[in-house]
C-alpha cells in the first residue's frame, strides 16, 4: 500500500473534515443571534452612519456565501484574516496562544501517563486484590471528575491551603512555567489518567490471560520478560486511549483555562465564539481539527510501530 498512499488518504480525509467544519461553523456564526456591530458598540448609542460604516467595513451586508468565499479565498492564500475583536492578525493571535495550550496539553498528557500507566499496570498485576480495587476506584473517580471541579479543588487545596503552587499566571522561564502550569495540567490530567488506568489495566489483564503469556511462563521466562511481552501487546489499546485523551484534553483545556485564567486557545475560543469573531473561530476550528488529525496520525504511526501486522500488512490472527 505504501506510506505515500496512506498519507494522501489521511490528508484527503482531513481536508474534507476541515471543509465541512468550516462551512458548519461559518453558517452557525451567521445564524447566531447578536451582531458584530452591536457588540462593537455595546450599549452606547450609535448613529445610523456609524452602523452603516461598520457593516461596510466588515462586509456584513454581503450574502453569506460571499462572506464565506472571501474568508476561504484568504485562507487559500495563507491569510487567516484579522480578528474583529482585537484587530490583530488571527495568525498572530493563534501563534501567541498555541504554545500555552500545547504546553498545557503536553504537560497534562505527561502527568496523565506518569500517573495512569503505572497505576494501570499495578492494578492488572494485583488483579482482584485490594490494591487493584483502589486503583480501579481512583481511575473511575478521575474519569468521572470534570476538569473544572478538579481545578477548583486543586486550587483550594494546593494553592490556597498548602500554598505549594501559585494561584494563577503562566510564570516566567521554563521552571516558572512548569511550576505555574502544574495545577492546571493536573486538573486536565485527572480525567485522562483515569482513562489510561482503565484502558491499560483492562488491556494488560486481557494480555496476561493470553496463551502466549502462559506459554512464556511455562518455558521458564523470567517475570520481567513475560511482563514485557504482555505490556508490548497491550500497547495498541493504550495508544487508542492516548488518541482519545489528547482530543479530550484539547476540549478540557477550555474549562481549565477558564478556571485558572490562562490565555490559551480554549479561552480564546470561548471569547471569540460569544463575540462572533468569525475569523478567529474559523481559524481555531481549523487549527484544532488539524491538531486532532495530527494526533490521530501519530496514533496510527504508533500502531504500525508497535504492531508488525499493521506494518507488514498481515492478517490479525
Amino acid at each position, binding site marked *: 500500500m505504501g506510506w505515500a498512499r496512506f498519507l494522501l488518504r489521511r490528508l484527503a480525509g482531513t481536508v474534507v473534515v476541515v471543509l465541512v467544519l468550516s462551512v458548519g461553523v461559518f453558517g452557525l456564526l451567521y445564524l447566531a443571534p*447578536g451582531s458584530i456591530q452591536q457588540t462593537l458598540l455595546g450599549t452606547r*448609542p450609535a448613529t445610523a452612519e456609524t452602523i452603516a460604516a461598520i457593516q461596510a467595513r466588515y462586509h456584513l451586508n454581503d450574502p453569506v456565501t460571499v462572506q464565506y468565499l472571501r474568508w476561504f479565498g484568504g485562507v487559500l492564500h495563507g491569510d487567516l484574516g484579522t480578528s474583529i475583536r482585537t484587530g490583530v492578525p488571527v495568525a*498572530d*493571535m493563534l501563534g501567541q496562544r498555541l504554545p500555552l495550550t500545547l504546553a498545557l496539553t503536553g504537560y497534562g498528557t505527561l502527568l496523565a501517563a506518569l500517573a495512569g500507566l503505572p497505576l494501570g499496570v499495578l492494578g492488572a498485576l494485583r488483579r482482584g486484590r485490594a490494591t487493584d480495587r483502589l486503583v480501579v476506584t481512583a481511575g473511575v473517580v478521575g474519569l468521572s471528575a470534570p476538569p473544572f471541579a478538579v481545578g477548583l479543588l486543586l486550587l483550594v487545596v494546593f494553592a*490556597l491551603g498548602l500554598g505549594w503552587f501559585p494561584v494563577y499566571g503562566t*510564570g516566567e522561564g521554563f521552571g516558572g512555567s512548569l511550576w505555574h502550569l502544574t495545577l492546571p495540567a493536573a486538573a486536565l490530567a485527572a480525567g485522562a489518567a483515569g482513562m489510561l488506568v482503565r484502558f491499560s489495566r483492562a488491556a494488560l489483564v486481557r494480555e496476561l490471560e493470553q496463551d502466549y503469556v502462559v506459554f512464556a511462563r511455562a518455558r521458564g521466562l523470567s517475570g520481567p520478560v513475560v511482563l514485557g511481552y504482555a505490556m508490548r501487546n497491550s500497547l495498541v489499546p493504550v495508544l487508542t486511549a492516548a488518541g482519545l485523551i489528547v482530543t479530550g484534553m484539547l476540549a478540557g483545556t477550555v474549562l481549565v483555562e477558564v478556571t485558572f485564567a490562562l490565555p490559551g486557545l480554549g479561552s480564546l475560543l470561548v471569547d471569540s465564539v460569544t463575540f462572533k469573531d468569525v475569523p478567529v473561530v474559523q481559524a481555531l476550528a481549523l487549527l484544532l481539527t488539524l491538531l486532532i488529525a495530527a494526533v490521530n496520525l501519530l496514533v496510527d504511526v504508533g500502531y504500525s510501530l508497535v504492531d508488525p501486522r499493521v506494518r507488514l500488512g498481515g492478517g490479525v490472527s
Partner: protein
Amino acid sequence: AVLPAFLAACGSAGDTPAAPGQSGLDVLRVALPSSIGTLDAAKEAGIMNYVVALLVQEALVGVGQDGSLQPSLAESWTRKDAKTYVYELRSGVTFSDGSALTAEDVVASLGLHARKGSTTAFAYAYANVDTIEATGPAQVTITLKSPDASFAWTPSPGTLLVTSAKFIEATGERIGTPEGRLLGTGPYKVAEFAPDSHVTLERNDAWWGGKAPFRQIKIDFIPEESTRLLAMRGDSVDVALNVPAEQIDQWQTIPDVQLKTAGDRSLVTLAFNTAKKPWNDVHVRRAVAHAVDREGIVKSVLRGHGQVAATIPDPAQWGGALTAGEVTGLYATIPQYGFDLAKAKAELAQSATPEGFSDVLTYPSSGPQLGRAALTLAENLKGLGITLEVKEVPLEQWIADLGKHGSGIYLGWYFATTGDPAEYVQQLLHGSAVGQNGTNIAEYDNDEVTGLLDRAKSSTDDAARAKLLGEALVKAAADVPYQPLWWGESATAFGKGVTADGFGPYFFVGPWAAKVAAR
C-alpha cells in the same frame, strides 16, 4: 519559533512577589475582572478598556472628584456661543514618545470619531459636530450643528482620548493592538500587551502631571473571580478592581487588604417595552414595579454595596449642576413604586391580564448580580401569576437583544461615560431614540417628556437645564417605562502594600494609578 513565543506568552503574568516595603513598590500588580481584547477604548465596549487607557491617554478635559469638569490637556475652555467651544491647550505637554502635543494632534484625535464614516464607538458623541479646527498652535475650536449643552462633556475621557497625528497616520487600524498599542500623554506608556492576558505599562517620566509612583504596572485580566480572590490571598496582586459585591465579605477577610467602595455611577434598571403587550399596560408595569424588592436586593445581592435607585441618573452625576441638597430635594419629588406585593396584586387585577402571563428576562453572563436580582423578582412574580423565565445570555447577545427592542422586559445596565446628568436621561427617555438600535429600550415616546428634554439640550444655563431634566424625570416616572433598581457601587481591593487617596466615584476617570501609593 515556538519557544520564544511561548516565553513571550507566558512571560509576564503577575506573580513575581515584588516584595512590598522594599523602598516602596516598584511594580504595581493590578488584576482586572474581565479580559480586554484591544487597548483602544473606542473599539471595544467594556469599561476596563478605560481603566487601562486612562493611564496612558488623556482628554481635553478631565473630571474632578465632585463630578465637575476640570482642566486636563486643555488648560481652559469657553463656550463662545451656544454652538461653539474653544479649547486652549496646556503648554509643555509631550507624548510619551517625546513629541510635543499640538493642536493638530487634538484635531486628528477628534477626527477619528468625528469624520464621516467613522466606525469608532465614540462616533455617536460627535454626530452633532460641524467643524473641528486648530485655530492656533495651542487652540482648538469645535462648532456644532445645533446647540447641545451636553457636548461640554464630549472631550472628556468618556469619549475622547488624545493621541498624536503622527501616530494615527503611522498606526492606522492597528491602534490598540499588541503591535500598534497606544500613544498618549499620560503617566504611563504601554510596554507590552497580550490580548485577553495582560498588559504591562512603563512609567512615562515626562508626564506633565509629575512623576508617577510606580516604575511599572502589570495588569492581568482574571475573569475568574474565585481565582482573583485566591490571587489576592496569595499576595500575587496589589490592586483588584470591581470586586463583585457578593464576594466582598470574603475579600474583607483577607488580612491587611483594604476594600474601598464608592458609587460608580452605574445604573441597573428594569425596562418595560411600552410598545409591546402586555407591557404596554401601565398597570402591568406598576404591578411589576411594586413586586421588586429593591431594598432587599441591595442588601443581599449587593451586600449593601449599592444604592436603591430612585430614578435614572446617579446623584453623583449632577456634580456640575446641582448641590447634593438640591438633588435630594429633586429626587424626593419623583414618584416611587416601593416593594408591596398587595399593591402589585391590585395593579395587576386592574390590568388587561389580571391572571398573569409569562415572559423571558435575559441578563448578561458578565453580570451575575443582575441575574440574582432578576431571580428574586421572578420569585416574587410567581405569587402574582406572572411567570418570568430568567435567562443568562452572553454579553454580546444581551447587547444585541437590547438593540432589537424585541422583548417585553429588559434589564438595562449602564455605565456613565461622563459626569453629565443628562447622559442617560436623554438616551433612555427621548422619543427620538425609539426603534431598532435606539437607546430608548422602553420605546417610551411621550411628547411632553421629549419636549422637556429638547429644551434642556439647548439650554446654556446649568440650573435651568437641571430643572428641565428633573421635570422630565418626574413626568416619565408616572408612566413607569423604567423601574430603576440600583446605582452601583464598585469596590476596589488594595493589597497589603498599597493604598489610595481620594477614592470616589470618579477615581478611575483619570490617571488613577498616580493616586495609588505604597503603604
